[in-house]
Structure formats: structure tokens, C-alpha cells
């Protein structure tokens, strides 16, 4: 007997959107205790379909046909009042973005207790007790403190767990999780997946899980739905879809999954001059505390970093969230000033170089930013984004434009892209513009900070290929910051593992990923989802 059944659901988008329907003819069932994974490219309508079940479509987006039966009742036409009772009570949802999904001005505890309050459950002290229990259950360290904390005082992973606690508060029949782990590092991700799995077993909770991480899908899914531009293109049991895909799109997706093994064929680094060498680098942040009368807090984000980057080499920097990866990268391009230590670029120390001189050196070392959205000025056209750097360094505007055209071609974009604004591109395309911008100055070194983590696998694969290709063609050196070890495996020659600001392990990629020296690295490796599946895939090939 199915708990939820969706029939011919079509969701219309408002005028001016990229297409007419966010989702079309969606058809699926969900039985109690089942985990259904929805995968597919970005913008394919995954989130909209899920939101439709909650009755929480954004303004202007409306279901125009079909039905959603929950417990034998069509909930599409349900009056708001009855929907209120379902929401949070019998169906609950975890949203994509944990950073902004919590009210910044409310304490964590209050936000959880609110769920009970909304459904008139329990007395005040009981609610508090339950909130505490839930926080403990989702594995938040020191729940007594966390319950009184504000969202900004928690890490991304902790916030995501608070969201999960909220969603689980009333033991719903259905949990909808929209990319709940995308922003998390592998260890945290593993914990959360365990938690969901536990709950399902204990409470017969059905789960709709949206993700683009196939490792995760492989680990948890009973059934899988693949979506593309608003339509379901393939559906079936996890085994069938993952191992014996039928639809070409599914096949393409699965082909694009990065592998821990095999992907990258060793390094051909003949020991040459290091283009960049880092010696004894430290970065310490000190911040006032948020609490009244509080003390100053000191964060040692990077401690005693030492390494060399050789010409044509790619180094991956991996490690859990908050381990200092980004800080290290930013110190190298001097977006932040290191506290101590030297950064030798072509033998010159740029760690403490003053403005004008630094500016001259800077074009040799460029950065690709994590978020393709926020790293492009929303009010600049692509042509401007790509040419202003070279022009600032004295290239004639005409030449810069020509070069920009070439670069766009190089990163696989049409020259017509020149006159468009960033918002007119997809995430993957935007990331390519970011890459083109970094290349526009003909740098010797590129620092890529989580350059692909926001992208879905197929686009991720494209971008990674592109980077590898460019690197080979232009003989670039690259520092690749990521928390996805599969991605690191795919592109890096050497890997640096960071933990709490320190470099704990360095070595060739194959060594670090398969025969690590430290326990920390081993725990990271163990947490990678979908390892079984990867083997199965490898076996199938």
C-alpha cells in the first residue's frame, strides 16, 4: 500500500522563467519505510516536485494538473488549515541550504520547540526536553549548550543536523530531504546518512532524498528516480538504475561519476623548479565573542604550513570543513595577509610584499572561487568580467576582447556569451566563466577553492576535464582545494591533508588515497559514501 502517490503532476513556472513547466507528468509512489532517491541535473525540477508535496511552492509556481495522494487523500487542493497539520507533523522537509534555513535571530532550542507548539503537542517543559533529546539523537556535541545557541554559532554540519532534528521532531511518515549533505564534509555526511537510516528502520519512515552524489544514492536508496528538464526519464530499483541504466542520460550521469581509483594516471612530474614554495606559514584570526562580556576568541586557522608546488603539478588540499584549506589558499594570493611565514613565488617572497609590487606579481597566481554565483559581479557582462583584468595590466581593450573570445571557446562556451550577464548562465557555465577569468591573465599558478563542489556530476566532470586539459596544454600548476576525495583523486598529482590548521599528511595521490599514513586520513577515506557501489561499477566494467 503506498503512503504517497503522485500522478501526472505538472508544475507550471511563471512567465519569463527558463521554461514553461518546472516538472511535467511526474508519477511515483512511496511506501512506508522506503528511501527514494531523486537524481538529475541542476534545474531539472527535483526541488519543485518535492516542494509541491509540502504545498510550499514559491510564489508564481503552481501545480496545474495531476494529483498528490497522501494517505488516500488528494492533498493538492487541501485548504491551508489542513495542510498546516500535515506539514511538520506527518510530512516534513529538510531544505537544500542549511546556512540560511534557520532563523538567525532565534535560539536553536526555540526553533525546534516551535514544531511541537505548531501542532499543539506537549507542554512547555516537555517540549524543551524533547528538543534536547532530538539534538542528542542527531549527534550534536554538547546539546545542552547547542540548545541555547544561535544558528551562526554552529558549523554548517551542525546546522544541517538541527534541521534534521526539526524535521524528525514529530516522527513524520515522510521525510523529504533536499540535498541535505551537499555542503558537508564526508565525515559529517556519513553520520547524517547513518542517522536517517536508523530512523527509517526504527520508525518505518519513508524518505524522499534528493542528491547528486551517486555515492550517497548507492549507499541508501531503495529506489531511484532520474530527472532531466522537468521529466522523469528513468525510474527503478537502486540496483537497476545504478548498475544497469537504460536511458542515455542516466548512462551519461553514471559515466561521469568520479572514481577514487583508476581515474588519474599518476604524475609525470620530473622534479623541476618549484614555482611556489610555502615556508612556515601561519594565519591566526582573533575575533571578539558574540556573547556579552565574553572573551576574545583566537582561531589558529593555518599553522606551520610547508610545501612546494612544481611547474605543471596539481596539488589537492583535502580535509574536513574548517580545517583551514580556504585560509591557506587565500593567504597564497594575499586576499588575506599571513601572520607569519614566507610564500615564495618564483623565488620572491610575496607574503609581506606591499601593494604596487604585489599587484605586478599577482597576475602570475590566480584563483577560481567556490561559488560561481557570488564570484561573478551580477551587474557585469561576461565581456567585462573577462577583459578588465588584462586591461588593468595594460593590454589594449581590443586585444583583451579577442583574447576573451578565445578563452570562452577554450572553456567550451559560445562567443555569444560575451554580452550576457552571469545570471543568464547555468551553474556549470558560470564556473567556466570563472575559470576563463582566471586564465585571462595567463597565470602560472591557479588556486581552485572548491571549484566544482556546487556542480552536479555531469557538469562537474566536464569542468574537471577542462581543468585537466588546460593544465596540460598551458603547463599550469594548480592547487586544488576540495573536500571531495573522489574529485581529488581524479585530478591531483599530490595530495595534502589538513586537520585543524595543520598539514597532517602529504604525498602522491595514489599513496594518500590508498595507503595513508595517518588515522585521520584513514577516517576520511572510510567515510566516503558509495565505496561498495564503486567496486560494483568497476566490476561491471
Amino acid at each position, binding site marked *: 500500500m503506498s503512503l504517497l502517490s503522485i500522478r501526472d503532476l505538472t508544475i507550471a513556472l511563471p512567465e519569463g522563467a527558463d521554461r514553461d513547466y518546472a516538472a511535467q507528468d511526474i508519477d511515483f509512489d512511496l511506501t512506508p519505510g522506503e528511501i527514494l532517491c531523486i537524481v538529475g541535473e541542476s534545474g531539472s525540477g527535483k526541488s519543485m516536485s518535492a516542494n509541491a508535496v509540502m504545498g510550499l511552492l514559491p510564489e508564481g509556481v503552481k501545480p496545474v494538473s495531476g494529483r498528490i495522494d497522501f494517505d488516500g487523500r488528494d492533498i493538492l487542493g487541501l485548504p491551508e488549515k489542513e495542510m498546516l497539520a500535515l*506539514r511538520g507533523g506527518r510530512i516534513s522537509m529538510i531544505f537544500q*541550504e542549511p546556512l540560511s534555513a534557520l532563523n*538567525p*535571530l532565534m535560539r536553536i532550542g526555540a526553533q525546534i520547540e*516551535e514544531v511541537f507548539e505548531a501542532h499543539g503537542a506537549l507542554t512547555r517543559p516537555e517540549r524543551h526536553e524533547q528538543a534536547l533529546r532530538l539534538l542528542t539523537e542527531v549527534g550534536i556535541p554538547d546539546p545542552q549548550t547547542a540548545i541555547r545557541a544561535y544558528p551562526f554559532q554552529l558549523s554548517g554540519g551542525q546546522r544541517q543536523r538541527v534541521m534534521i532534528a526539526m524535521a524528525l521532531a514529530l516522527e513524520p511518515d515522510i521525510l523529504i530531504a533536499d540535498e541535505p549533505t551537499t555542503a558537508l564534509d564526508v565525515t559529517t555526511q556519513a553520520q547524517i546518512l547513518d542517522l536517517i537510516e536508523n530512523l527509517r528502520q526504527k520508525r518505518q519512515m519513508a524518505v524522499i532524498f534528493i542528491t547528486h552524489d551517486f555515492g550517497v544514492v548507492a549507499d541508501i536508496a531503495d529506489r531511484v528516480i532520474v530527472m532531466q528538464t522537468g521529466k522523469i526519464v528513468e525510474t527503478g530499483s537502486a540496483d537497476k538504475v545504478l548498475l544497469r541504466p537504460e536511458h542515455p542520460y542516466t548512462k551519461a550521469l553514471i559515466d561521469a561519476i568520479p572514481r577514487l581509483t583508476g581515474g588519474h594516471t599518476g604524475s609525470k612530474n620530473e622534479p623541476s623548479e618549484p614555482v611556489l614554495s610555502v615556508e612556515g606559514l601561519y594565519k591566526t584570526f582573533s575575533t*571578539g565573542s558574540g556573547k556579552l562580556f565574553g572573551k576574545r576568541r583566537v582561531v589558529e586557522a593555518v599553522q606551520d604550513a610547508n610545501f612546494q608546488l612544481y611547474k605543471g603539478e596539481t596539488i589537492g588540499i583535502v580535509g574536513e570543513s574548517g580545517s583551514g584549506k580556504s585560509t591557506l589558499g587565500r593567504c597564497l594570493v594575499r586576499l588575506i595577509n599571513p601572520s607569519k611565514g614566507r610564500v615564495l613565488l618564483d623565488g620572491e617572497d610575496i607574503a609581506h610584499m606591499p601593494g604596487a609590487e604585489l599587484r605586478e606579481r599577482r597576475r602570475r597566481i590566480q584563483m577560481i572561487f567556490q561559488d560561481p554565483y557570488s564570484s561573478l559581479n551580477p551587474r557585469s557582462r561576461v565581456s567585462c568580467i573577462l577583459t578588465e583584468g588584462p586591461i588593468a595590466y595594460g593590454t589594449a581593450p581590443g586585444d583583451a576582447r579577442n583574447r576573451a573570445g578565445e578563452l570562452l571557446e577554450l572553456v567550451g562556451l559560445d562567443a555569444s556569451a560575451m554580452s550576457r550577464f552571469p545570471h543568464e548562465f547555468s551553474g556549470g557555465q558560470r564556473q567556466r566563466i570563472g575559470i576563463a577569468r582566471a586564465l585571462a591573465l595567463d597565470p602560472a599558478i591557479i588556486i581552485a577553492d572548491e571549484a566544482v563542489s556546487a556542480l552536479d556530476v555531469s557538469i562537474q566532470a566536464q569542468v574537471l576535464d577542462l581543468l585537466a586539459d588546460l593544465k596540460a596544454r598551458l603547463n599550469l600548476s594548480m592547487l586544488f582545494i576540495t573536500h571531495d576525495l573522489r574529485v581529488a583523486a581524479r585530478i591531483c598529482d599530490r595530495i595534502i591533508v589538513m586537520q585543524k590548521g595543520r598539514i597532517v599528511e602529504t604525498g602522491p595521490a595514489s599513496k594518500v588515497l590508498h595507503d595513508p599514513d595517518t588515522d585521520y586520513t584513514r577516517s576520511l577515506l572510510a567515510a566516503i559514501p558509495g565505496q561498495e557501489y564503486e567496486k560494483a561499477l568497476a566490476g561491471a566494467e
Partner: protein
Amino acid sequence: MTRFILGRLVKSVFILLAILILNFFLIHAAPGDPAAVMAGEAGAADEKFLADLRTKFGLDQPLYVQLWIYLKGAVQLDLGFSFRQQMPVADLIWDRLPATLLLTGAAFVLSLVMGVIAGVAASARQGTWGDTVISTLALLFYATPLFWVALMAVVVFSVWLGWLPGFGFETIGAGYTGFARALDIGKHLILPATTLGLFFMAIYTRMTRASMLEVSRLDFVKTARAKGLSRGVIQRRHVLRNALLPVITLAGLQAGQVFGGAVLTETVFAWPGIGRLMFEAINQRDYNVILGVFFVSAAMVLLFNLITDVIYVFVDPRIRLTE
């Protein structure tokens, strides 16, 4: 926190001193002096009369000496003597301050409360005629000259309808005490406070509306809806609180500008407040009074800036106070 507040207070003292010096020169740059004005009012004067006055006021001394004398007093919190009224400036200000604080305080509370309510109401009805009415009214209040509104209010409510007294602080000579007096003052307060408040109310309305709409698009509102919270609770508990942040900034600014806004209102409604004192003092070149009022006003601005900053910390836990 205490360190932050203390630090700011210490800094404020220096800023105040600097402001005082600049104000001193600013005011002395205007043509005419208090002696000439007073002589002018007398309808006749001779050299001796003017010279006597100037000696008495200390205006015969070089400017830097006058400044020095003034500053010496000011650091001991002595704001000098009013040339014209022959009273210590501090007493004058102290006399007038309660009326102004009452008026601006009432206008402030009124504009803030009404403005926020209207803004919330408009945002809840976004796109409907209710929204249009509120928004248009707000714009109307915003764009109408204050003195025009004030006079019209008096004509309608005081002359035609006879509901409310049109001017003054209380019924003179009625001899009310206690509650009766409070009631009487309250009645007198309604028209000026409303007039003064209308303008800011309009601003708060617009700001709250925009801010509410902005915040209701944020993700955490969706989270709140997913919890099954009703619309009202969401608006109140989640949207409003966040939407109030920019309103607080503005309110801090308004609160600081206690005297400036009140000049016209106090004049039209014969309200015995500081705004009028200041305006008259400027016209009469009563230097010490002008400086005194500017000084208190500056202190007020700095104080309210500080209070706003502190309130911010309480309302928004993300904000950290840094020195």
C-alpha cells in the same frame, strides 16, 4: 560589552569637544551678534549701549579667548550664561528638555508603532488595494510639508471640531494637578505628536513593508512554514523580527535628531521645547544657548548611536561589538 560602552563613551567626550569647537566657529561666522540684536529690539541704541552689552557678554574679547573661556566651562559641564535671557544655559535647556522629550518621545513611539503596524499590514496585503492605500498614504504623508499638515490639523480638530486643544503644553491657569494634569497634557500632546510623527511614520511604513517582503522570501521562512506554523505566527515571530533590523537603524537616527525635527512643530503648536529655544537663539545670536543646545543635541546623537548599537547586539546575536 562594558569595555565597549566605556570605550565609546570616552571617545564621545573627545568627539563632543571637537564638535563644540567647530560649532563655536560655525556660529560666530554668522553676521550680527547678540548685543546688536538686543539693541535692535530696543528700537534705539547708541555706541555706549552696545559697548556695555558687549563687555557684559564678553564679546569684546578676541574670539580665541571667548572659545577658551567657553571650553573651560564646558569641560566642567558649565554651559555658560544666556546673554538674552540672563539665565544659565543649563537651566534653560533643563527647563525645556522635558517638553521636547515628551513630544519627540511620543512622536517617536507613535511613528514607530504605527509605521511598523502599517508596514506589516501593507506587506501582508501585497499587491491588493489595501497595500496600495497604505503605501499611497505613506507617500502622501511623506511628501506633504510639515507646517501645512500641522496647520490643517489645528484647523480641523481644534477650530472646527473643537476636540483637541490646538497649541500649548497644558491649559494655562487651570491649576490641574496629578492625574488631571497628565490628562490635560496628554490632550495637548496629541496634535503635535501626531503631526511630528506622521513623517517618520511614513518612512517606517515604507521601510517595514519593503523589509518584510524581503525577509519573507528568505529560506528560513520556508522552513518555518514547513514546520506547520500558521501564517500569523510566521509573520510575527520570524519575519517581523528580522525585518525590524533596518528599522532599528533608522529609529536610532530619528531618536538622535530629537531637536531638529521639532522646530517647526514646536513653533506651530507653541510647544515650550528645545527646538524653539534653539531657533529663537539662532535668530537672536544667543551664542551660548545655541552652543548649549547643539552640545546637548550632539550628546543625544552620540548616545542614541551607542544605544542603537547596543540594542542591535541584543536583537541580532550575530553582531559583535568591536572596539
